[in-house]
């Protein structure tokens, strides 16, 4: 039987949730801000068109984008809406794996008309919850993810795209039109390295010698390339949920120059992360701290993150704090204008 995987995700999830209950926001540029109202963590298509970037601190938007509605985040609402979408998907599809708050993979193997099925799901989620979704379908997880990206970026597809419906030649043309950075698992950093090797597009990655990929980047990227070529390397059940860590981070309201101030901030975030851990009843296996300069300012940029594995799993604040500070001391000495400090704990 031909393997068919679908990836369904909600467009601009947080903004779309807000729009369901406030029709006035429809068609308007809208951003949802992070916990402390510091950064834009979700943007409507209209806000994206204004050039507002993901994670952008809120103040510059105020100067640039007049008429942008900025909303505080309402995570209980988003969690409730997410539960609804996931329930609809899992009741409809033979097998579902939740990948993140707003996306899930489905195994549609054996479903007679995958595209029609995807469209039915899309319409149902729209009617039942008010949320717009896109569905990408492919023979592997990586191809489904890519098909989802295509469905999202080409309005004429109306949100559903089965990459396997293309002829091999048409598929090659399509892959050649997609930046390699858009491929699942290829981040910005990896993209730059691949480009240096002449691998610019998804097609280039698919065609690259597997041995080269493995020796330069490891087995994970080799698998990605194989999956792009239609060879399944990852099963649905193997998907690691995207979020297995707790992150407490925030942009400072002003530039931080002293080491002491930074130390205080790290301690604050680590204790918040520890509270969250305890509330969830989980423990951390590792602690990561990172700091970076304001990416939206034209100054020499500095970014550094360090991770340490704990000797035993812990949810104990002093223990986590000790680890975090040890990291920080080894991590850096001169803090330039610091924009962010983070203390996630990898939950077990």
């Amino acid at each position: 039987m031909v393997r068919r995987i679908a990836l369904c995700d909600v467009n601009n999830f947080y903004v779309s949730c807000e729009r369901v209950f406030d029709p006035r926001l429809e068609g308007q540029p809208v951003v949802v801000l992070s916990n402390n109202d510091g950064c834009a963590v979700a943007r409507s298509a209209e806000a994206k068109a204004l050039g507002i970037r993901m994670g952008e601190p809120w103040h510059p938007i105020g100067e640039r984008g007049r008429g942008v509605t900025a909303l505080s985040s309402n995570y209980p609402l988003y969690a409730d809406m997410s539960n609804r979408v996931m329930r609809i998907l899992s009741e409809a599809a033979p097998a579902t794996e939740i990948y993140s708050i707003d996306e899930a993979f489905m195994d549609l193997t054996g479903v007679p008309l995958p595209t029609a099925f995807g469209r039915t799901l899309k319409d149902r989620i729209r009617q039942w919850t008010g949320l717009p979704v896109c569905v990408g379908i492919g023979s592997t997880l990586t191809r489904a993810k890519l098909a989802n990206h295509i469905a999202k970026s080409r309005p004429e597809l109306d949100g559903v795209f089965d990459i396997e419906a293309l002829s091999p030649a048409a598929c090659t043309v399509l892959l050649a039109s997609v930046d390699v950075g858009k491929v699942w698992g290829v981040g910005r950093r990896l993209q730059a390295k691949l480009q240096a090797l002449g691998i610019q597009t998804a097609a280039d990655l698919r065609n690259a010698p597997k041995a080269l990929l493995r020796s330069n980047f490891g087995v994970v990227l080799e698998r990605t390339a194989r999956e792009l070529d239609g060879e399944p390397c990852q099963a649905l059940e193997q998907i690691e949920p995207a979020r297995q860590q707790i992150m407490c981070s925030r942009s400072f309201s002003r530039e931080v120059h002293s080491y002491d101030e930074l130390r205080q901030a790290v301690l604050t975030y680590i204790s918040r992360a520890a509270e969250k851990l305890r509330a969830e009843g989980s423990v951390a296996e590792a602690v990561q701290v990172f700091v970076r300069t304001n990416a939206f300012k034209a100054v020499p940029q500095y970014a550094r993150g360090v991770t340490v594995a704990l000797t035993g799993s812990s949810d104990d604040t002093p223990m986590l704090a000790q680890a975090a500070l040890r990291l920080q001391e080894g991590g850096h000495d001169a803090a330039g204008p610091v924009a962010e400090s983070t203390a996630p704990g990898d939950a077990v």
Partner: protein
Amino acid sequence: MPVVRLRQTITHVVALYATPRQPRLMPRPLLVSPRIQAGFPSPAADYIEEVLDLNDLLVRNPPATFYVRVQGDSMVDALIFDGDILVVDRSLDATPGRIVVAAADGDLLVKRLRKIRGRLALCSENAARPDYRPVYLDRTQDSTVWGVVTGLVRKF
């Protein structure tokens, strides 16, 4: 349970409640007293007919069902009062005659959907307020039915 406060509008939906994922109410035995029309029923005459879970009673399709709190007096003749909580099922088709939540001009309204001379309209039900005019869906920008009202919860 998360509550969303919605902007206050003359007519209606002001808050939204998430539906519980698992029913949290303890099922209550439903007492039926067939002989008693008025006055105090004798406990001895009662018998348990079935177990009543209010979620089962009110929520037919959980992922599509929302609770909303309403504000305003435009539906009092339909016995929907200020502060009532409505059960809204988005998966049902809105047919004329049903009470619906509708988006019109950016507001979420609670109205009776009617067909007036072939045109769909959102109608208030308050004889004391003839000034509440029907809202014609074809004349109102971006107006759509949001969900169908299937129940009402009121605490005394």
